[in-house]
């Protein structure tokens, strides 16, 4: 059994390592205003975070992660560029797996730097890779930027692109939308009648806050969508090919560059990945052995919009990841109130590291 004192000692030494890499320590409150997190993650955060409240401040959440408060702190007046490290408890409700911890120590490192994103990505990945070396972990890298750029580059309406973009992190809904926009979903008779204007008038009185005008606007949008050309099978095929890229980094890069010949919108992302690969090599990362999965991070890493990575125990697939991280430029835009800054970082779980070391 790993004691709390051991975990805290390991957290302190990991944090000292990040300070040596140039980070300044950051502290954030345990109680976070619920509004910000609900706005960002939606109602689903309630299944993952502990919610509490008082009469004055309303709903508060026990810090489910450090990223949001650290970004807020930086956006409220941090110097530029900036590197932060932190360690402390995070709290996660567990409704499905009684073996997962509901409270554990996280140590993190976050970089806010505009100058050279590829170098910043490599810096973060290499630091985490070093921190967990010797634990026999399986690493994986992905890049949400490919899918985001591919969606923006589709030859279709802006409304469809926006709908797909909104569901990048919900693969099933994304797939359902893709099928519908490609004309692969049957239209119900009721919907067909509505679109053609042959539907019987609704005799029910209007009720609730959503106005008749909003309903008319949506019907117009549905008609416009029905009139738009379906996504071509070729484009859907290219998206599928993109999501299926799963190779060691140099071969993945080659495949992605080949794809970019037809799917030209991902060419810049491929070049960003090439620059990152080079920067990783400079940092001494063995890129030839690094697995790259284009669909990694889509289900669990909302708000990452560029590089994503994870380190998992190869022997204990039942354990959660030991380290995860990635680039989250969009999050700084959402929280920055107009301002934005490229940002990348990650977190480690010292308790899990000790548990794995004990088993070695």
């Amino acid at each position, binding site marked *: 059994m790993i004691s709390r004192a051991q975990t805290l000692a390991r957290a302190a030494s990991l944090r000292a390592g990040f300070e040596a890499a140039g980070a300044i320590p950051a502290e954030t409150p345990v109680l976070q205003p619920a509004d910000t997190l609900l706005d960002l993650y939606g*109602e689903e955060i309630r299944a993952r975070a502990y919610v509490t409240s008082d009469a004055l401040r309303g709903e508060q959440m026990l810090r489910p992660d450090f990223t949001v408060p650290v970004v807020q702190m930086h956006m409220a007046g941090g110097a530029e560029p900036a590197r932060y490290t932190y360690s402390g408890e995070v709290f996660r409700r567990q409704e499905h797996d009684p073996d997962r911890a509901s409270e554990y120590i996280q140590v993190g490192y976050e970089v806010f730097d505009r100058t050279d994103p590829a170098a910043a990505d490599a810096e973060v990945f290499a630091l985490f890779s070093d921190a967990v070396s010797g634990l026999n972990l399986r690493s994986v890298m992905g890049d949400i930027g490919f899918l985001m750029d591919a969606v923006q580059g589709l030859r279709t309406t802006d409304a469809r692109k926006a709908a797909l973009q909104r569901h990048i992190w919900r693969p099933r809904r994304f797939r359902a939308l893709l099928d519908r926009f490609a004309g692969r979903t049957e239209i119900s008779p*009721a919907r067909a009648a509505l679109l053609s204007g042959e539907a019987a008038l609704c005799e029910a009185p209007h009720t609730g806050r959503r106005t008749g005008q909003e309903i008319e606007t949506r019907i117009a949008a549905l008609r416009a969508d029905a009139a738009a050309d379906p996504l071509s099978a070729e484009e859907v095929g290219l998206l599928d090919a993109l999501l299926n890229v799963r190779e060691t980094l140099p071969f993945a890069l080659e495949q992605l560059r080949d794809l970019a010949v037809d799917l030209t919108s991902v060419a810049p992302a491929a070049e960003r990945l090439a620059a990152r690969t080079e920067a990783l090599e400079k940092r001494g990362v063995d890129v030839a052995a690094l697995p790259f999965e284009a669909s990694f991070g889509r289900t669990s890493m909302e708000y990452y919009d560029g590089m994503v990575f994870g380190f998992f125990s190869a022997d204990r697939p039942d354990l959660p990841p030991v380290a995860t991280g990635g680039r989250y430029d969009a999050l700084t835009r959402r929280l920055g109130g107009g301002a934005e800054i490229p940002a990348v970082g990650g977190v480690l779980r010292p308790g899990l590291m000790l548990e794995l070391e004990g088993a070695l």
Partner: protein
Amino acid sequence: MTVRLGVPSKGRLMDKTFEWFAKAGITLSRSGSDREYAGAVGGIDGVSLVLLSAGEIPRELSAGRLHFGVTGTDLIQEKLPLWEQQVDPVQELGFGFADLVLAVPRAWVDVDTLDDLDAVAAAFRQHHGMRLRIATKYHRLVREYLRQGGVADYALVDSQGATEGTVANETAEAIADITSSGETLRANHLKVLSDGPVLRSQATLWRSRVADLSDADRLVARELTERLTAG
């Protein structure tokens, strides 16, 4: 020790449950006055009757204070995480049918499915600067259903009663509630989404998987189960 059986303490659900047990030759009754929540069991030895609110039966089963209990599937699944590990359905009772459904105003002619609800939630948030509110008391079930359906930009607001009225009162845009006939929905100008219910529920006899049983109790529990599932 006795085998403790929990049954809803009032109304149609209690009467129907009593009738259902009577068919297996087990007579349940309220002892004393109508206001007293004590019960008596006839036709089988070693079983004691506990009358309590249907909403509390899941908790009592999972705490092991009841060995058997009658309550709805909806309440078990809403109140007990990992319910399969805590309770075991012995027999569906064939009454107390109720579906947990999502409903929106009938005037929303552009909304038939979850897909539509999701699109409307996105537009609603853009237009009103707030997430589309769904009133319910079944928070966990509805949240899980919407997560699986990939619906975003909604907020659940708590409603412990008169949920169908929240839309007209503008405290919610949609509702998720139990309905048996749909009449209340129609009266409040609401319609059910076509994707099918969040959950189909009926009164069910549950066995606690965690309650301790003595050897003698075990025989009684077996006899009870056999007689109730024989029909």
